[in-house]
Structures are given as C-alpha cells and as structure tokens.
C-alpha cells in the first residue's frame, strides 16, 4: 500500500491547510457521556428487576412444595359406625367423628400416652384440620374401607410445614413460636421413618381459597382469570379492531374524529380504579348483573383494554405503506377489499402484539376488580362467568393481607404463577409477531 500513498520522485504534493478546531474532542466526549448515561439507566433497571425476581422467587419457590405426613389410619367400625346403620342410613358416615381416627393413628405411631391430653392435643395439631374431611370423603366414596388399616398421606398443619421448610426460627423461646420443642421432636421422629416428607403442592393450583394456609390454593383465581381473559379477548379484539379500521381507513378527518381520537388517547390514561367505579355503577347497579362475577370483571377490563388495543391497531394500520393501498385501489379494489385483503394482513402482527399486551395488562389488573366485588372469599371454582370468582392478582392482594407465615410464601408463589402467565403471554406476542411479520 505504501507505494500508492508515497509519491514518486519529483511529484509535487499539495500542502495540507492548517487544521481548524472543529470540536471533535468535545463531540466525542458528549457521545461517550451519553452512552454512559444509557448504560447506567439500563443497569439501574436490571438491578431492580433482579432484586424483585430474587425476592419473589426466594420467598415463593417453597410454596410449590408442601409437607405431608403419611399415617396408618385404622378405619375402625367402632368409631365410624358403632351401631352398624350405614346400610340403611348413609348419613352416619358423614356425621362420624373422623378426628378420632387421626388421633388414634398419631398416638400409635408416636407411642404417646393416650391419657395425657396436652400431649395428644399437640400431636394432632400437627395434622391439618382439613384431614378429617379428607378421611370422611374417602369413606363416603368407598365404605368398604371400614374395618381396614390403610396408609394415608395427610397434609401437615401449616405451622409444621413452615417449621419443616426452616421458616420458623427454632432458637426462639418455645413459648414465642407456633411449634414447640415436643412437636419438633416428633417431626424429626416422623421424618426419620419417611412418614413426614415434602410433596409437590398440587393443591396450590386446584384448591379454592381457605383460611387454613395448607389448604389454600389458586384454583378459583385461575378459573376466574381465565374467564376474564376470554371475555376481554372476545369483546375487545373485534370491537377494538373494527373501531380502529373505521377511524383509520373510512372515517372522514374532521373535528369530530379528532375529538374521538383525543378522547381515546385520554381513556388509555384513565386510572383503572375509575373503570371499576364505572363498572359498579353501570353493570351492577344499573344493569343488575351479579356482583363478584367474572362476567362483570371481564366487561370492566374490556373497557379498560379497548383504548390500548385501538391505539396499537391504529399505529399498526398507519405503518402499512401507502403504496400498498394505492396498488390495491389502482387495480380497482374497493376500499373494503383494500383493507381486508392487503392492509389488515400486513397490520396483523402489530394488532396481535397490541392485543396481547393489552390482555397481559388486564390480567395483572387488581383495582377495578376490588370495586366490583371480585375480592370475595370464594372456596369453590365458578362453573360459569356469572358465579362469584376471584382473579390471580386479587388473590395475591388477599393473601398479602393474611398474618400466617405460610401465607407469605403462598403470596410469593401466587406472584410467581402470575408472572409466569405474563411471560407466557408476552412470549406468545413475540412469536406471533415473528411468525406473521412480512417485509416489503
């Protein structure tokens, strides 16, 4: 290369003029500074995200495991049906005192002194208070169990669960904690034989709400949130897309449509609790729809999501190059054909992304649902959207208000479930966009 740059003998080279100071140093320094601000801003955001996720996950991951105790339960006829009337009167099976079976099993397993009441009380307190109902349901379903001894896995009490997960500080004085030393001794004894163990917490996804933390689950909230999402999707997608298409492609541009546009943009910024008040006034008080129902929740969230979807859809429609519209119109396509054959398919990725982000927003919304009564204590999953229900974020809110240690981990567990759904939806949005994205 040098022989190109260096002139040959006798060639006259022009002289470079004196360099002007064009502030290069200052300009590069400004750029460097700006990059540093940017990196600092992103790091700041990432740190907070990391803190949030670690906090939630470290507190919540234990909620997916649950302590259970397997006991050899003797379904003694003497306790359940002493007068042998079950053939004629099945209600005796329901009325029987199943707690006795658990007490007897504990006494036998731990070799307790059956006459010492405090000892026996402490021992039976280790089993969930829901256990007798579990046994009753088993016997009612299969009366042939009576007279046999079967190993049955029962949920441990929430305090035992917490102690087993190391969430209760055992160094604290015995009087100031929920699990006493005697119970800890029994826990160790049961754990050695394998009777006390941890299992996956299916109840968290299946059960409804309960005041006993070990039996409380997100079942109702999941069903409720599912109904909400379906209602929001079915209502807001067609209404939002139709409104956007009309405003963007057909409506004349005048004062009225300007006013509508301003209002839609403002509606997107209205606090969600205001939509809750509106829903309460219109859907419940005026239209007479049932309180706490996911139908009303869905309608309120639809109102809240519509501006988001309309704004996203209009932006997506506007992003379609005008040359495509001219091409279609120039061929003699009607306006409707132009929109539905060319513009809409090209805008689809943007519309879907906007819709899913709107839905994700609605999934995490709490305030409007509180106002229309979806904050009720609901133990049974709703069969239809007209029945009382809760939603995931509301369940988080309700559990966060509970005092027991076991609810703390369940609150975080519920947040993890909620976050997982949000991540799934956003992932779906990204995949759909990738799939439908076309270049021109």
């Amino acid at each position, binding site marked *: 290369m040098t022989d190109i740059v260096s002139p040959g003998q006798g060639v006259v080279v022009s002289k470079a003029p004196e360099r002007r100071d064009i502030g290069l140093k200052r300009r590069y320094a400004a750029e460097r500074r700006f990059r540093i601000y940017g990196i600092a801003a992103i790091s700041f955001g990432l740190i907070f995200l990391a803190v949030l996720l670690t906090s939630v996950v470290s507190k919540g991951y234990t909620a997916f495991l649950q302590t259970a105790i397997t006991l050899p339960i003797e379904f003694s006829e003497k306790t359940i049906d002493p007068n042998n009337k079950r053939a004629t009167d099945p209600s005796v099976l329901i009325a029987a005192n199943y707690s006795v079976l658990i007490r007897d099993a504990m006494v036998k397993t731990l070799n307790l002194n059956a006459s010492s009441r405090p000892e026996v009380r402490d021992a039976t307190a280790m089993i969930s208070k829901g256990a007798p109902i579990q046994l009753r349901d088993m016997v009612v379903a299969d009366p042939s169990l009576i007279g046999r001894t079967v190993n049955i896995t029962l949920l441990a009490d929430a305090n035992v669960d917490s102690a087993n997960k190391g969430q209760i500080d055992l160094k604290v004085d015995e009087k100031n904690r929920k699990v006493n030393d005697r119970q800890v001794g029994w826990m160790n004894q049961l754990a050695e034989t394998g009777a006390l163990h941890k299992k996956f917490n299916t109840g968290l996804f299946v059960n409804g709400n309960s005041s006993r933390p070990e039996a409380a689950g997100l079942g109702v909230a999941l069903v409720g949130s599912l109904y909400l999402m379906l209602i929001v999707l079915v209502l807001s997608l067609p209404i939002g897309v139709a409104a956007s298409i009309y405003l963007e492609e057909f409506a004349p541009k005048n004062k009225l449509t300007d006013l509508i546009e301003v209002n839609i943009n403002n509606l997107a910024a209205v606090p969600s609790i205001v939509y809750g008040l509106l829903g309460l006034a219109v859907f419940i008080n005026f239209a007479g729809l049932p309180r706490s129902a996911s139908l009303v929740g869905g309608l309120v969230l639809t109102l809240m999501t519509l501006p988001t979807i309309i704004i996203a859809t209009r932006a997506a429609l506007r992003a379609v190059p005008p040359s*495509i519209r*001219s*091409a*279609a119109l120039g*061929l*003699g396509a009607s306006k409707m054909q132009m929109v539905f054959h060319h513009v809409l398919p090209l805008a689809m990725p943007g519309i879907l992304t906007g819709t899913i982000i709107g839905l994700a927003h609605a999934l995490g919304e709490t305030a409007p649902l509180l106002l229309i009564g979806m904050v009720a204590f609901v133990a049974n999953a709703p069969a239809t959207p007209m029945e009382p229900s809760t939603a995931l974020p509301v369940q988080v809110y309700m559990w966060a208000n509970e005092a027991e240690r076991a609810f703390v981990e369940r609150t975080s567990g519920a947040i993890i479930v909620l976050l997982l759904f949000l991540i799934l939806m956003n992932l779906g949005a990204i995949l759909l966009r990738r799939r439908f994205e076309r*270049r*021109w």
Partner: protein
Amino acid sequence: MNMLTEAAVEKAVDQKMNTIPYKMIGQDVSVYYGEKRALFDVKLNIRENTVTALIGPSGCGKSTFLRSLNRMNDTIDGCRVTGKITLDGEDIYDPDIDVVELRARVGMVFQKPNPFPKTIYENVAYGPRIHGLAKSKVDMDQIVEHSLQRAGLWNEVKDRVHEAGTGLSGGQQQRLCIARAVAVSPEVILMDEPCSALDPIATAKVEELIHELRENYTIVIVTHSMQQAARVSQRTAMFHLGNLVEENDTDKMFTNPDDPRTQDYIMGRFG
C-alpha cells in the same frame, strides 16, 4: 428499410395521428388540494392506442393530472376536481360512474415498484380475482401467464411464480406491477414516472415494453426524462406551474415546439 421510406412512414403516421379517435378528453380540468390550486383549466385529450407523455418541471401538476384520470385523487383528503374528464365520451366524475369499475378500465403503474408482499402469481391474479375475470383455476393460470408474457417477465420468473414478488429486482418488480395492471385488461394504463427508481438497463426493458403495449392499450406516462418522452411517446404534453403549456406530436415538440417555454425546458434552461 432505407432513410427515405422511413421518413415516408413517419409522415404517414403523422397524418394518421390526426384521425385517431380520442380515448379520454379533459376539459377545463382544475384540481385543488384544499385551498391550493394545483391545476388551472387544463384541456388535454388522450388519443387511443397512443403513448402520451406528460413532461414538465417538478410540481407542475403533471402527476396530479394523471391521477385525476382514474380518480386516484379521490383518496387524498381535501382534494377537489372541477371541469370534465370523459372516457369513451362518458364523464368519469359523473355520480353514476362507479370508481371501482373506472379503475378496472383505467389501470395505473406507480413511481416506486409496489408489488403486494405475496407471491408473483398472487400479485398478478389479485385483480382478475376481485373482478371475477377467471372462471376456473386454468383460466386464472392462463391470465397470469399471458400477463407476465405481456410484461416481458414470463421467461424470467416462470419457474418461480409461487415465490415472493418482493424478492425480484427493482426492474422486475416494476414489470410485475405492469403485468398486474395488464391482468385486469384495462383500456388505458397510466404510468407515473415508472422508471425513476430503475437503472438504465431495466429502464430500457420497460420502455420497450411500453412500446409493445401501445398496440393494445392507451398509455399516458409521466416522465422527467426528455429522452424517455422522445423515445416512447407519440404525443407529448408540457406542463408548467399547473398550466398546460403545449401539447403536440412528440417529434414536433422536440424539434420545433410552438411555445418558447417548451423550448427552454427541453434545452435544459429551466426546470
């Protein structure tokens, strides 16, 4: 063919030109964009099976006039057209005229190649499909092949008609757009600077194509290139500041124009 006979043929064409019927007639055409007036009482007639070139400096209203011939101006908010434009004697701004039908008769090719982001086949088949021109799949295949042949693109794309039209080169894309316009069998084809985004080789192909299309279609072309106007057209109209300056046979226009402004523009003294 020696020089003499060629000149004789040219003369014969010239004389014949005056007997060619008018396909479209524009009378006192004025176009307003809101308050702004873009065209001033333009009187311009388009002869059948002739290439008419519209020339003039930027912003002179030639594209506006072109777009008023198939009412593409209707799509612009605040645009208003006065005067009268007829196609085969029918007023195209008459309320009884359906704009969709008009655009099927007066097709358009745009400045920037704008194929649909679909396959080559779908690009060409779209027009015939919405107008119901094909009775069957075989019919449609025939229309597509025929149109691509007309546009001189068939041999280049016959093995990949089901690939994306946007994957073609710029010149091929523009010929695809011409094939798409031809597929609906229009009577008039409007071309708005069809070669401005193309390289000289692609331009030559499109010009050759325009030459061939003239046999079956009436063509109106807007161009910034004097040479192109001279090469492809038989009639030329010169616009300036929204006025029609001169309309004449192309040969006369480029050798001995009536209006001094035309002379100046062609010589490159303004514009």
